[in-house]
């Protein structure tokens, strides 16, 4: 198979050369050529690699399908340019053209909505309430999906997936171990086809100010005590320039800026975790949380946390980093983009990302939530459910098949968001992209091994104004977040949130309030408004009195059923 791929690639590359010579990129011809190229290669590709050419065979008679979709402001802006060049519009985009050319499917958008402020979700509910249900569409909210299934408006998709979806798409859809399928279950049947994206975005990394550590001759922290000593050393040396040096950045929503810190104590206040009896327990009520809160309270008392954090969003709180007043943050890998802004102003500043320190120095385990663009659902009365599979196969091929100018279909200024069902990539896409980039590094920068997103990332790593940031995320250095992630994945230290079921009525009524109470209780403990023991005991009482115990029972009932079904 690899050989065939290489061959196909070589063929494509030569084709690109030919077309590049012949066609101006900003010309309608370029658009048409790309679409034609995709149409010509689609069936061939699936036949040669999987023997599944029939799954993407075009219809004899045109088949019409109505759908709806969402987009973001970025895409809208880019579209203005594309309209100029190719006459492309949101409703009549490259994927719509390709579906018609390659599959004889006429995609008709009933509406498209900017997803800012959950705009799509709201619009979709309105449309459903009014009874205007498209033939197939993306549902982004799990409760909505279950309610649609309950009302009999959408069809079960087990058979559709089995019979019509390509092996490649099935692989992508179950790359998270089937979590997203499980979330779309109602009454023993699956009603939504997952559109996965990278799950690792909730993975928390620790970033440390490298130049400060070198100045003070400090080692990377192994234990939480080490970490605290580094913070104290930074403060003592007044590296922030004045009295106002802080230990780390933390914000009022707490979890994003401390997720890795909690994990260092084996505490997971945002997830349902398995307890020693094999059941699920809410992480926010576990004893380990107390240790993390005691630690944070200690930092607060020593002036290592900015007292103002309780009113600051993460963006506001990060000002400490930008002003070089704090040299430690827990954050996502994309923090590097912010770090670069600091680096541009202060070229001396440099950062490393290392394995999370823990209470005992043992490696840290982390939890993830399955992330998705949504689920594809199919109108109960639509006659061609296989259209979903064909369109999906077309998009997957366009985006990741290495077809000619792959980036044009995929990552080029977020063109993937034009896909009728949004992009669908492996749940480990970021990680796979990193491996692909490493392969390229190993081969001395041989870009022919690059696929899909890696092509764009490689461009970012080697040209443009943010090389520094990209090297600190996806470069081949030893202190990047991806090294940490690789270590966690290879040693199986990543788990998934235990509860994936839809919330029942009781939980819907209570859960957001309980989470509010938890945040307030934790904040009060950290700033010392109440003692740790007393405050935590109070929180446990609140959890119980507001229905937390009842919810835990319901969640465990779901869990037992889900475990039984797996066996």
């Amino acid at each position, binding site marked *: 198979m690899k050989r065939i791929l290489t061959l196909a690639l070589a063929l494509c590359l030569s084709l690109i050369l030919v077309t590049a010579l012949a066609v101006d990129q900003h010309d309608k011809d370029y658009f048409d050529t790309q679409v034609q190229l995709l149409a010509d290669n689609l069936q061939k590709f699936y036949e040669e690699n999987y023997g599944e050419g029939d799954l993407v065979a075009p219809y004899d008679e045109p088949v019409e399908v109505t759908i709806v979709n969402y987009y973001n402001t970025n895409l809208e802006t880019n579209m203005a340019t594309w309209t100029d060049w190719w006459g492309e519009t949101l409703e009549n985009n490259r994927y719509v053209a390709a579906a018609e050319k390659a599959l004889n499917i006429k995609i008709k958008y009933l509406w498209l909505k900017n997803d800012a402020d959950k705009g799509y*979700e709201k619009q979709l*509910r*309105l449309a*459903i*309430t*009014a*009874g205007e249900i498209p033939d197939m569409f993306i549902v982004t*909210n799990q*409760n*909505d999906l279950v*309610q*649609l299934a*309950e*009302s009999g*408006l959408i069809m079960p998709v087990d058979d559709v997936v089995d019979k019509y979806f390509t092996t490649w798409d099935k692989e992508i859809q179950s790359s998270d171990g089937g979590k997203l399928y499980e979330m779309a279950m109602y009454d023993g049947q699956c009603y939504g086809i997952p559109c996965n994206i990278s799950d690792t975005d909730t993975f928390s990394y620790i970033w440390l100010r490298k130049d400060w550590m070198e100045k003070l001759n400090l080692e990377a922290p192994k234990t939480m005590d080490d970490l605290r000593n580094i913070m104290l050393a930074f403060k003592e040396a007044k590296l922030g320039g004045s009295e*106002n040096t802080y230990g780390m950045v933390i914000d*009022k929503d707490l979890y994003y800026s401390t997720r890795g810190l909690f994990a260092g104590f084996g505490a997971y206040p945002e997830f349902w975790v398995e307890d020693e009896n094999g059941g699920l327990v809410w992480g926010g009520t576990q004893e380990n949380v107390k240790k993390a809160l005691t630690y944070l309270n200690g930092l607060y008392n020593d002036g290592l946390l*900015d*007292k*103002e954090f*309780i*009113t600051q969003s993460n963006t*506001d709180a990060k000002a400490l980093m930008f002003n070089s007043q704090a040299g430690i943050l827990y954050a996502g890998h994309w923090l590097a983009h912010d770090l670069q802004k600091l680096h541009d102003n202060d070229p001396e500043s440099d950062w490393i990302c290392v394995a999370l320190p823990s209470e005992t120095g043992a490696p840290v385990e982390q939890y993830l939530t399955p992330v998705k663009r949504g689920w594809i659902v199919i109108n109960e009365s639509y006659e061609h459910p296989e259209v979903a599979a064909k369109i999906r196969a077309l998009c997957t091929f366009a985006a990741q098949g290495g077809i000619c100018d792959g980036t044009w279909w995929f990552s080029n200024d977020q063109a993937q968001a034009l896909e009728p069902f949004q992009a669908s990539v492996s749940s480990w896409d970021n990680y796979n992209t990193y491996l692909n980039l490493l392969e390229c590094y190993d081969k001395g920068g041989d870009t022919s091994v690059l696929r899909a997103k890696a092509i764009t990332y490689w461009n970012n790593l080697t040209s443009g104004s943010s090389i520094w940031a990209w090297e600190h995320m996806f470069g081949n250095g030893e202190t990047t977040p991806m090294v940490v992630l690789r270590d966690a994945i290879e040693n199986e230290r990543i788990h998934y949130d235990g509860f994936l079921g839809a*919330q029942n*009525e009781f939980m*819907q*009524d209570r*859960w*957001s*309030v309980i989470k*509010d*109470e938890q*945040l*307030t209780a934790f*904040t*009060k403990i950290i*700033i010392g*408004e109440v003692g740790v023991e007393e405050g935590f005991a109070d929180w446990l009482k*609140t959890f119980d*009195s*507001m229905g937390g115990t009842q919810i835990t029972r319901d969640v465990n009932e779901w869990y037992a059923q889900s475990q039984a079904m797996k066996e």
Partner: protein
Amino acid sequence: MTQKNTATHSHKRRRGISRAELPLHLMLIPGIVIIFIFHYIPLGGLVIAFQRFIPAKGLFGNQKWVGLQNFEYIFSMPNTMNVLTNTVVIAGAKIVLNLIIPITVALMLNELQSSKLKRTVQTVIYFPHFLSWIIFGSIIMDLLSPQNGIVNKLLGALGTDPIFFLGDNRYFRQTIIWTDIWKNFGYGTVVYMASITSIDPTLYEAAAIDGANRCQQTRHVTLPGMRMIIVLMMVLSLGNVLNAGFDQIYNMYSPIVYETGDIIDTMVYRLGMENAKYSPAAAVGIFKSVVSMVFISASYYVADRFFDYRLF
């Protein structure tokens, strides 16, 4: 006979529409249609306050009727009493202060000799009214920051410990109320200034001839002249007794000050964030409308009774 004629005549005049008035009445039609379509028909949607509304079942589909359960749900939340208190206290203080302060400022501005200065001050205090709370809120957060805010720098210079206005339950409500006044008193001032200019100047001359000084003129000429507009503003604002200002509080509060700063609107917003809770939101909407109607009716009655103010 003559008498009867007159009666029929006047009767006719009252009931019928004259040819000259007809176009004016026709011009009302679009407005009435719009109000009917956008304000009366949607009232039908209030039924969802008494249902457990699920969008997938359709607006008039087979929804589950739950009686007053949504109201019970809202009032069974552990913090509801607290939240109601916050709402009424903050809204009440805003209503009272938003009457007193603009009137006072308008009276004082009226005494200024230089009309240039008067206009400048008016513009400057009116300006914050045009900023959204997102912008004005972050300006305030900057000003009031315990470490770097100018307010606390000044307090520090006077030897006071820094005060965490937005992060301390002792100060949060005050801060919310006064910053709202700051943002909006300019608007009220402009309205009152306008009503002052419409007072007949001969009244002042007469008062001066009678020997009234400036204070007495203010008390006996200016204030009575403004009476109508003051009563109008009061009647209108009393409808807001449960509107403590979502935009403002949502942009300025944080979990630590929920105790003194969480209001009905922010609570419902958070409830609705995770799931589409249309029903409790509709229930709260009805509750607020009913309370507002009671307050507006009461204040209208009072205005009619004691100040002779009447709309209809």
